């Protein structure tokens, strides 16, 4: 087991070298496929092996742990020097200060500080099991998609950009390794190191195109994530100096034992703070929005399987320590507020990727809120959301990327009649959107559980956040969904590569299986996880209701299909749409007041006066900052 885990963490890093040095496009693609397959197989093997051992939490050390400790120490410095070099080069020297402070803090304590109690370094439990599978399966699928997409990106669409595909694919593998390391680490020092790698890698991916916008956005991502890294560094310092440990689980346990208002909450608060930056909650949402300048596969990677999931992973870990205290309140208020405000902001966007970005932030808000509350029901909901969100968001990003490559636009207004023009792409888009919000699918189950939990909590404010947030969520998704349908459009030439389709269809099938099979997932994966965390596992949604849900899920597919069969052979007379008698002979043009033909444009509502970025974004950042500052002060002040 220990060797397998070592391979799981180290191999992706080593594999990253291969695409980086192979410059021949064809060979590189093959190598990426093979390496991706190896990573996926490794992750599945690890998960299955662990499962076959009975599903108990395993704690162990890697072989040559001392060597790894040294590598990580050197790695910390290497990352610091990389950041210093890049920020000086781009005249953003101030950002390197953040990195220097935290690296010196952690490394200094490690080298010269008191020696914390020895601990094991690796732990696998149910949460890790789920995360490994998400990273291994979804992450690798994105990697495969990236090969085809980046080809089209450079060869057909962005000839002006320098072809740095080798670098891009290498970074994706680094990301796998860092994420595996992050979710497996027990030691905070290790966790911090992998955390920093994801920050730096995402910074490099966002800046991929090296345009001015990309560089600016990448530095925004860097400083926000480094701020989070500083949070972990402070937590490590506190844990070493006061508690004499670097074991994440010891820190959590002492916070649980200490109860509300104890000093042991201080590291938890800073870890939670770091997680909030990583999962792009307000006021730190800016970096994730900026991340969409990067090519689509990196957005898909950052938004679904990796990066932001690192934040929520840590929060779910900390959940027990946050239940019923100020840290928990900070986290769930921040999350609930983000859920509402990000879904409002999504209404005013017409750029497909931006809508997806806001919806990611909004969904993460819900997950964060669930984790922050720390009740059994909400953790159940949070874990479900993590799974569903990873699959459907990855699929949606890939689909929008494919649409952009094919039609040259990712604006939602240009997706009019997509169902007729590109039926295959439209199908995937529809499954993805349905998976995000339509009643019986994944999101809803989680919203349901969260709503029940917060009514019981009780937290009136959170209940309001959720009911309003879900209505605004419904608005922007339905609007998009409605746009895809249409009539009398001509069929277009689909330029999507087969390997892109492989990945997208795989996601679609996976999503539908997850929806239909969610009682099984709940029983065999999430309930054992609840057992691990809480010692008991009561089903959150009763079996009767789950049965109805499954019936509804099937009905959403079956009813329209039956109706389709019923109406298919009708020979109804086809007519023009009603245009007040000003039709010109087709459905696309009408006679204007000058008696000339004019093309008909129908557009969706964006309500920018109400939900525009210029109206809501800054106030949201201010509110988010206040929530975090106030609660951090309360926790830290209460401790001393």
């Amino acid at each position, binding site marked *: 087991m220990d060797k397998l885990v070592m391979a799981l963490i180290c191999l992706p890093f080593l594999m990253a070298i291969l695409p980086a040095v192979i410059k021949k496009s064809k060979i590189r693609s093959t190598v990426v496929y093979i390496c991706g397959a190896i990573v996926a197989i490794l992750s599945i093997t690890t998960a299955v092996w662990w499962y076959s051992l009975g599903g108990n939490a395993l704690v162990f050390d890697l072989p040559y742990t001392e060597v790894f400790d040294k590598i990580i120490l050197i790695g910390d410095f290497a990352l610091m020097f990389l950041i210093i070099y890049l920020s000086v080069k781009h005249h953003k020297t101030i950002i390197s200060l953040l990195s220097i402070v935290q690296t010196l803090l952690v490394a200094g304590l490690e080298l010269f500080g008191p020696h914390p109690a020895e601990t094991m370094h690796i732990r696998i439990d149910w949460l890790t099991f789920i995360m490994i599978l998400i990273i291994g399966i979804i992450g690798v699928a994105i990697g495969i998609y990236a090969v085809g997409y980046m080809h089209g990106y450079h060869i057909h669409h962005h000839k002006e950009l320098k072809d740095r595909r080798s670098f891009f694919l290498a970074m994706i593998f680094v990301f796998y390794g860092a994420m595996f390391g992050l979710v497996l680490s027990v030691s905070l020092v290790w966790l911090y190191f992998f955390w920093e790698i994801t920050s730096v890698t995402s910074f490099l991916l966002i800046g991929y195109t090296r345009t001015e916008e990309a560089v600016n956005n990448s530095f925004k991502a860097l400083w926000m994530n480094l701020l989070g890294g500083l949070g972990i560094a402070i937590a490590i310092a506190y844990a070493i100096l006061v508690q004499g440990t670097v074991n994440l689980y010891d820190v959590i346990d002492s916070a649980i034992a200490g109860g509300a208002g104890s000093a042991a909450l201080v590291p938890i608060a800073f870890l939670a703070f770091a997680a909030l930056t990583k999962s792009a909650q307000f006021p730190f949402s800016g970096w994730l929005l900026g991340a969409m300048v990067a090519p689509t596969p990196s957005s898909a990677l950052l938004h679904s399987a990796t990066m932001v999931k690192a934040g929520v992973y840590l929060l779910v870990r900390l959940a027990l320590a946050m239940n019923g205290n100020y840290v928990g309140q900070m986290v769930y208020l921040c999350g609930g507020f983000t859920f509402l405000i990000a879904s409002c902001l999504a209404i005013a966007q017409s750029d497909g990727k931006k809508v997806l970005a806001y919806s990611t932030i909004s969904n993460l808000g819900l997950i964060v809120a669930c984790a922050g509350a720390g009740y059994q029901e909400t953790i159940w909901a949070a874990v479900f959301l993590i799974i569903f969100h990873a699959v459907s968001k990855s699929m949606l990003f890939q689909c929008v990327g494919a649409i952009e490559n094919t039609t040259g636009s990712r604006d939602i207004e240009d997706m*009019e009649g997509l169902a007729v023009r590109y039926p295959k792409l439209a199908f995937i888009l529809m499954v993805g959107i349905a998976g995000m919000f*339509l*009643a*019986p699918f994944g999101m*809803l189950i989680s919203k*349901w559980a969260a*709503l*029940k939990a917060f*009514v019981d909590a*009780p*937290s*009136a404010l959170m*209940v*309001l956040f*959720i*009911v*309003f947030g*879900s*209505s*605004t969520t*419904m*608005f922007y998704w*339905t*609007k998009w*969904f*409605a*746009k895809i*349908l*249409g*009539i*009398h459009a001509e069929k277009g030439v689909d330029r999507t590569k087969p390997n892109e389709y492989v990945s997208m269809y795989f996601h679609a099938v996976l999503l539908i299986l997850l929806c239909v099979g969610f009682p099984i997932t709940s029983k065999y994966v999430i309930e054992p996880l609840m057992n691990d965390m809480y010692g008991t596992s009561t089903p959150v949604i009763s079996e*009767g*209701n789950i049965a*109805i*849900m499954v019936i*509804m899920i099937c*009905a*959403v597919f079956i*009813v*329209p299909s039956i*109706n*389709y069969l*019923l*109406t298919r052979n*009708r020979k*109804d*007379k*086809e*007519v*023009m*749409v*009603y*245009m*007040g008698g000003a039709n010109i002979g087709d*459905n696309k043009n009408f006679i204007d007041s000058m008696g000339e033909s004019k093309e*008909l444009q*129908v557009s*969706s*509502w964006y309500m920018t006066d*109400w939900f525009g970025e210029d109206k809501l974004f800054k106030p949201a950042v201010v509110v988010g900052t206040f929530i975090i500052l106030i609660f951090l002060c309360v926790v830290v002040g209460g401790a001393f």
Partner: protein
Amino acid sequence: MSENLIRMIVMLLYIVAGPFIGGILDGFDRKISARMQGRKGPTVLQPFYDVLKLTQKQLLAVNKFQLLMVMSYLFFVILSGVLFFGGFDMLLCFFSLSTAAMFLILASTSTHSPFSTIGTHRELAQMMSYEPMVLLTAVGFYLATGTFQVSDIIQAKVPAIVYAPGFFIGFVFILTIKFRKSPFDLSTTHHAHQEVVKGVTTEMVGIEYAITTLTEWYENVFLLAVVGLFFINSNPISYLVAIIAVFIVYFFEILIDNTSARVKWQLMLKMAWGVTIVAGGLNLFILELINF
């Protein structure tokens, strides 16, 4: 009789009798409205004649998909009602109802017609306005009676209205939007004066429009039953109270319909969310203070 048998009978009754009750109510609506406007008005059975006639008309389809979307709309509205009258979880009923609303949106937008597109987006704005209060209503029942199950809510010792008057006010308010009554009849209206022709239903012809009307009857019966549920407890007399309350609320909606002018969506959103926060939110807050 076993409890399950009663449930089955009530569910069947809803499926069979739902449209008749809805249609009769619609007939009375038109009659009362006419009297308020100083007209005589059609017979109360007129809505049935209308629907019958619609079913006999030739279907002129702009997009074939519209019919299947409208049929799915009907299915999910009936499902919501069946879940409600079968005594299941209230949240589940409302979730099913919003799925149904989705299909209406898809039906109207699949035509790419200018008038129904405007109607669609107004309908979306309406959904966004009423949705929070709809979910809050379920929460209100839970806080008042300790359960989301309709079958348990009707067994409560004290009717929900005692603890949840704010939720009741909020729900009645958004009912005006749900019933497509003026001043909130933005997406489509039962009156002849609509500036976007027939809004969401512009392109619905013959059987399609008949199904849409039928669906609205089902939906209205379900929504009015939610109003009644506020007054029901384990005492059999409460059912009588509930029926009276439903009639009063329905009359009130007709009165509002005939005495107010259509507003813009901005004002609708502001008012609906305002009432939701003030009536629903305040009630929620107070109940939480009392309960804990």
